[in-house]
């Protein structure tokens, strides 16, 4: 198998930001994303997901290391001060590298 190392960015944040984050990802050149609904707790308190104002989403973007850094920095600059948000990156291997930008 011809594996290809790349990066996975995971963002956990407020559900209210969904459409804005999608815009950001696409404008910076991300070719795809996956979203799941989530709930949780962090420095900005409990977000139990019982109604929309306190629901979280979990966004995953697979992309090359440069875009991953760009995205993470962009999100940090734009949202960290005012929104519940956690981002982390990890190493993954994909089969069809052409599907993911770099």
């Amino acid at each position, binding site marked *: 198998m011809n594996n290809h190392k790349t990066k996975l960015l995971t963002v956990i944040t407020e559900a*209210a930001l969904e459409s804005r984050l999608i815009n950001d990802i696409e404008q910076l050149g991300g070719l795809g994303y996956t979203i799941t609904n989530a709930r949780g707790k962090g420095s900005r308190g409990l977000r139990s997901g*019982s109604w929309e104002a306190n*629901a979280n989403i979990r966004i995953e973007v697979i992309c090359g290391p440069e875009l991953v850094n760009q995205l993470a920095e962009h999100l940090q600059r734009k949202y960290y001060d*005012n*929104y519940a948000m956690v981002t982390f990156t990890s190493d993954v291997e994909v089969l069809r590298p052409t599907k993911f930008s770099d």
Partner: protein
Amino acid sequence: MNSIDPIIWFFLFGLFAGAMKSELRLPSQIYDFVSMLLLLTIGLKGGIELANQPFATLLPQMALVVGMGFLLPLLVFPILKHVGKFNKADSASIAAHYGSVSVGTFAVAVAYMNTRNIEFEEHMALFVVLLEIPAILVGIVLAKGLSKDTQWSTVGHEVLLGKGVMFLLGGLFIGWLSGPSGVESISPLFFDLFKGILALFLLEMGLITASQLGSLKRYGLFLVIFGIVTPLIFSVIGTATGLALGLSIGGTAILATLFASASYIAVPAAMRISVPEANPTLSLTASLGITFPFNILLGIPLYHWLASSAQNILA
């Protein structure tokens, strides 16, 4: 004992279950569904009423109500800023919540009048829609100033196309276009089930209110006092406005309730996007943790008494 509406018991039941840390929960999509039905039903009712009377006769009333919607948040902003010592963004956001209205509180007020066979002008539902929006705009301007930076088209999009306003407006237009006989076929879902659906909504509101009570201790006494005094004062203004508009006792009481109520659906969503630096916990603690229970438990009967006293004095 029987004089308390069962829907209020549902609220208290939710409050109790939440306080006891029970695992009771309305599934989130069911809560969305229930809210959606409430908003559509209220919109439909307003729309049917619009179909019943010439639009032009309502225009002056509507203008006055919209004007009040711009005024109310301006009244509390300085208090929040100078007495409450909140920063500009938080003061503006809380002011917007209290200048706007709570659809749940309105529904309880309507149920209260229906149970007691008190007549009221059905186009009150139209005022709910009208009062949702101006306070949001005022809140944004208070927080940001009238800078050219504010992307008003984005704000307008957020406000008008947010779920809350959209369902209300959608129901309103459908009711208006279909008229009373047209909506008959859909009335079993939207009208017959209304109070049962409201009961489930209040059950969840009780649970949510209970979860807000924890934050209360953190934010202290000012918020509690503010959350009770503001509705009292605003209800007096609402009563006066109702009299000025020549509303019935029921209509006046409902308008007073609307003024006294604080938003927890449309405004939080709009503030989160347009004034993100405001702490959402502050405004939700006040509006959900204090003002909402105060209004549905004590406020509505009080505003009813206020409206009838005022009308008696005038008569």
